């Protein structure tokens, strides 16, 4: 992944990844996972956006956790933004994609808040 434009070429969520990871788990568990993801993810996104882009352990952890959770759910745009964010922050790049993260997170939230979007694809 090289730039934010590449990220926007991806699907917002890869539903197959979600169902693969949660394979065999009951639908209510899958629903609870999505809800938990949105709630907890909100906190990590807020933590990242509130930081001043100094790549200390706290920001590293928040970015890493958001990335890992997003991988589990299949939120591949957020995964890619987190990866780009990690690369840029490590390189001391000031352009830290905060706007892109905030925007993509809202897009994902809207999509996931409509459970039918996920479960009708199953």
């Amino acid at each position: 992944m090289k730039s934010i434009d590449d990220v926007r070429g991806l699907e917002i969520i890869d539903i197959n990844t979600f169902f693969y990871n949660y394979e065999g788990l009951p639908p209510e568990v899958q629903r609870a996972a999505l809800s938990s993801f949105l709630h907890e993810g909100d906190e990590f996104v807020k933590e990242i956006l509130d930081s001043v882009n100094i790549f200390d352990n706290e920001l590293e952890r928040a970015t890493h956790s958001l990335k890992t959770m997003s991988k589990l759910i299949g939120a591949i745009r957020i995964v890619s933004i987190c990866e780009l964010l990690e690369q840029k922050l490590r390189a001391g790049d000031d352009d830290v994609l905060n706007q892109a993260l905030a925007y993509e997170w809202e897009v994902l939230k809207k999509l996931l808040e409509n459970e039918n979007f996920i479960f009708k694809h199953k």
Partner: protein
Amino acid sequence: MEGKQVDVVPQEQGKSHGDKLVLIVDDVNLMCHFLYETLKPIPNIETRTTGDFSAAESILVNSQVDLAIIDIHLKNASGLTLAKKIREGRYLCRHDIPILIFSGNTYKKEIQMCLAYDISDILAKPLNAGTVRARVRKALKRNVQLKSPDYYKAIVSTSGEAYKTEFAGAFVKNLPPPTAKKRISTNPTDEVKKHSFIKWPEDLSSGYHQIDRRLKHVTYLLNMLHHRKRTTEKYPNIVEDIKNIRLAIDDILYVAKGLKQSNAADSIWRLLFQRLSDFSKIKLETFATKTSNTHYVNKQFKEVRSKWLIVLSKPVMKEVQSEKHR
């Protein structure tokens, strides 16, 4: 019997006879939930989850845990520290229980630590539920004779570097073999390494070891300044620390001028002097003023970090592989 999720340490620590107690430690709730639900269908498994290092320790102190799944990167702690303490026999459980390390990123040094502590399996995130279940079943069936707790204690006491598991990657890239003899590190730099604000680029070099060593030292001093300023309310030595940073930069300039005389053709000098001069213009002394404005302090540190990273960037610093030290 179905699993029971407990995320606070209960007073009653018993488990049903014949049940296996699995402890899940991950500071991401979603992961705890996923693992808990994944293991729930396995018969005779009781599961406890926590995202907190000390709560995990309380469970381990009070319960006979049969298997632990631990995330490597916990908040304010390393999961490997917990694994190490299990192997040292510090808890109620057997020291040789299967330990599965769960991680999103796995670095070389972390794998070396896992090998040193005979970690049963490393689960790379994310994992499919069925795979996790299979790996846990396999780990529970395994009957491996591990070394004694004293052996693991000896690793800790003889390998100071290996002991430092908490994200010290900026400074410790290649760990020595786990059994290598090394004195215990009581170096105060440990706390700074854990909270590195600027990571030293291990794979880059100016081509002059005299310069590298000094640049690394300033990096350390800046990390220390950042760490102390952010973590301590009173920082009485801040003026002295800032003065030391200034002196260390002057020292680099002095040494670089000497090296320039015998290596005048090298193109790095002008850039190095320019970058150090730019960095020196930052008013580090403002950190010593009594300001409670965190935002301002963070902004200042941001400038420090980005300007110092410019000093440490190409072409002053080059890939080590492509250029031998002169």
